[in-house]
């Protein structure tokens, strides 16, 4: 979406968000609710850790054989009658989709929730080709009407209050009678969407997991829009990041359980779709053609660097953002990247390069709340630290992550060289710390080191090294 391309403005954007009490309380309340729901669904002691171990092991095993599984997926899908396409980057992915639509002469499209479609900016691309692409997930529909980007990967319109939704509907839905009653709002949108499902030429969805052995595409959702989108129009196009492939059907139950519990605290979602072919002759419904577009778009880069491979374990549950103290305060739009929150800070540099995302990787206290709830045990703080280190390298290495070494500054480097010299020379360290405590009375007069609302920390009057020396002398 339009504001989705400038994570380098993260600081300014987060400042605006921090100053908006309404937004702050919307996010805080929603995150509290989601944290609570998740905790309830893993209330049995050890239940999370046990399942997490399995989930992590499955994702690691599948990633370790990613090339083979992708080939197997391609042949299983092809045998099932699903047409498989490969896209190296966003542009190729967009062109493949518009190519299929052109072939089918499709002018109107309904789309289920797909973060990958956001990643490749599909809506803008189709709009430019005069193809109407309507979001059919309630949250996505709302942000589309508002011409905004999703602010959360699971709950795209989490930042919107019901009054704002009512105003949007009043503006965009013909015959809508203004109401702030949530059920009536949903009903109004449902009526619009029902009509669109019936008349759309094609349906586009994401994929949560794809099973290599059987060629099955799994789609997890709560509203039934995924099922409508993938079954009513005559063509179904499924977009999938290449990391989403798993080996066998046995891998699905643990991952599904981790996904729904981590995301919304649900034991299972209302709908779980397993799509394995286009309509067969004996079927009463279903699309005539199913296309699977496998998208790389930076994932191979993450895969090739063993330090970052674990980021591909992600099953996009959003638990890391739900538990992030930074996300809860600045909200999803501040990041200005498709994937906000902790995991977004790892994915975005792989999509956009480190130069544009330097402020994202530093915007974490490394508190580890994200890692502690990650259903597949991605070491998010460790990966963030690696990215920080990459951004500060003296020079970029070959085949490196784009933007490596882009955030090294002469001034900052000097600070850490001085730090190193002081800390590795005990005499110098003790001399300087003596100096610091000797002149500690000056601290309040120095420029505020972390802003006007916090006083400068005041050193003691003696260092512990001094006290220890005095102690030794006296004994």
């Amino acid at each position, binding site marked *: 979406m339009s504001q989705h391309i400038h994570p380098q403005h993260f600081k300014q954007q987060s*400042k605006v968000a921090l100053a908006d009490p309404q937004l702050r309380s919307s996010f805080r309340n929603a995150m509290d609710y989601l944290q609570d729901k998740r905790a309830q669904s893993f209330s049995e002691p050890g239940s999370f850790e046990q399942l997490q171990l399995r989930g992590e092991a499955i994702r690691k095993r599948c990633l370790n054989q990613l090339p083979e599984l992708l080939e197997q997926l391609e042949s299983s899908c092809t045998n099932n009658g699903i047409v498989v396409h490969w896209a190296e980057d966003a542009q190729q992915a967009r062109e493949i989709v518009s190519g299929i639509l052109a072939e089918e002469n499709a002018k109107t499209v309904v789309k289920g929730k797909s973060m990958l479609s956001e990643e490749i900016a599909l809506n803008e691309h189709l709009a430019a080709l005069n193809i109407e692409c309507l979001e059919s997930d309630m949250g996505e529909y709302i942000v589309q009407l508002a011409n905004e980007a999703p602010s959360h990967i699971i709950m795209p319109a989490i930042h919107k209050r019901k009054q704002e939704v009512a105003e949007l509907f009043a503006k965009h839905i013909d015959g809508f009678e203004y109401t702030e009653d949530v059920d009536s709002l949903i009903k109004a949108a449902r009526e619009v969407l029902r009509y669109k499902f019936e008349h759309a030429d094609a349906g586009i969805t994401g994929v949560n997991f794809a099973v290599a052995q059987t060629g099955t595409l799994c789609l997890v959702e709560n509203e039934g829009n995924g099922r409508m989108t993938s079954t009513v129009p005559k063509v179904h196009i499924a977009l999938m990041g290449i990391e989403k492939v798993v080996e066998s059907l046995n891998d699905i139950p643990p991952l599904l359980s981790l996904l729904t519990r981590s995301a919304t605290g649900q034991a299972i979602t209302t709908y779980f779709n397993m799509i394995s072919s286009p309509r067969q002759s004996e079927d009463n419904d279903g699309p005539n053609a199913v296309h699977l577009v496998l998208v790389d778009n930076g994932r191979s880069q993450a895969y090739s660097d063993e330090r970052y491979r674990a980021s591909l374990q992600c099953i996009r549950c959003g638990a890391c953002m739900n538990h992030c103290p930074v996300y809860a305060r600045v909200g999803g739009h501040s990041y200005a990247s498709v994937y906000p929150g902790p995991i977004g800070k790892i994915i975005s540099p792989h999509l956009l390069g480190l130069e544009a995302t330097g402020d994202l990787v530093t915007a974490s206290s490394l508190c580890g*709340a994200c*890692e502690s709830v990650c259903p597949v045990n991605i070491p998010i703080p460790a990966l963030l630290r690696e990215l920080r280190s990459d951004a500060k390298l003296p020079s970029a290495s070959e085949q490196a992550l784009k933007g490596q070494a882009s955030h090294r500054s002469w001034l900052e480097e000097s600070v850490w060289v001085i*730090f190193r010299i002081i*800390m590795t020379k005990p005499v110098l360290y003790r001399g300087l710390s003596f100096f610091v405590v000797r002149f500690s009375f000056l601290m309040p007069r120095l420029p505020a080191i972390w*802003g006007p609302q*916090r006083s400068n920390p005041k050193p003691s009057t003696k260092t*512990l090294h001094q006290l220890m020396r005095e102690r030794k002398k006296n004994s």
Partner: protein
Amino acid sequence: MSAIPIRLYPEQPKQVYLYASCLVDMFDPNAGIAALQILEAQGIEVLWLEQQSCCGQPAYTSGYTDSAMKVAKQQFELFDTDIPVVVLSGSCAGMLRKHYPSLLEKECDSDALAKFSNQVFEWGEFLLNICQIKLLDKGETTKAVVHNSCSARREMGIAETTMRLLKQMDKVELVEPKYASECCGFGGSFAKRHQDISLAMVADKAKHLLETQASFLLSADWGCLLNINSYLEQQQSGMRGQHIATFIWQRCYGGEL
């Protein structure tokens, strides 16, 4: 990391190193003295290395791995790996125990690093689980709120250990604030680089701490205290955080420092 392996603790040793951290050194040396004296009261000889400075964490988390590595190497080489290292901060203990082995992988012997990592204990963890300390509370009845650092909680897995230690003082009503497990917003250079976000976090933390109406704020980490106290001072609140070592010393041992 959600499942931190259960740690098996050795017998009480005769000697330990005290690793105080640069923050205690400069901002609260009395906590260092209190910590040392409490260890001595358990019959342990405390070794103090004059060459100790900083564990290198600030450079490490800022992405200056090379500087961090050089500092870490100099510090690591100070220690005899047969003697436990008792650290007066969950965060620095986490750096020594969890990050030195990978950071110094190419520089130092891996067996020595593994051995060292196994010898690192946070101060309260060491007292409770190795010394099996029994605190005798001689103070007045009071109420204290505890802030556990994120590294103590999630990296070292000792938040509950600290609570158990403090709960031994039977005249102290011990409470945790709302959102106890949420970060205070320090995070080293994060507090400076992203001041506005850090401020929003510490303001909320202070609010929840003050809501408990406790008379004391206790923490085992001076990093968090630096941040929280700076905010409390600027807001002219009467509450100030102190290190648990000082609090325990004053109530259970010798009184003033």
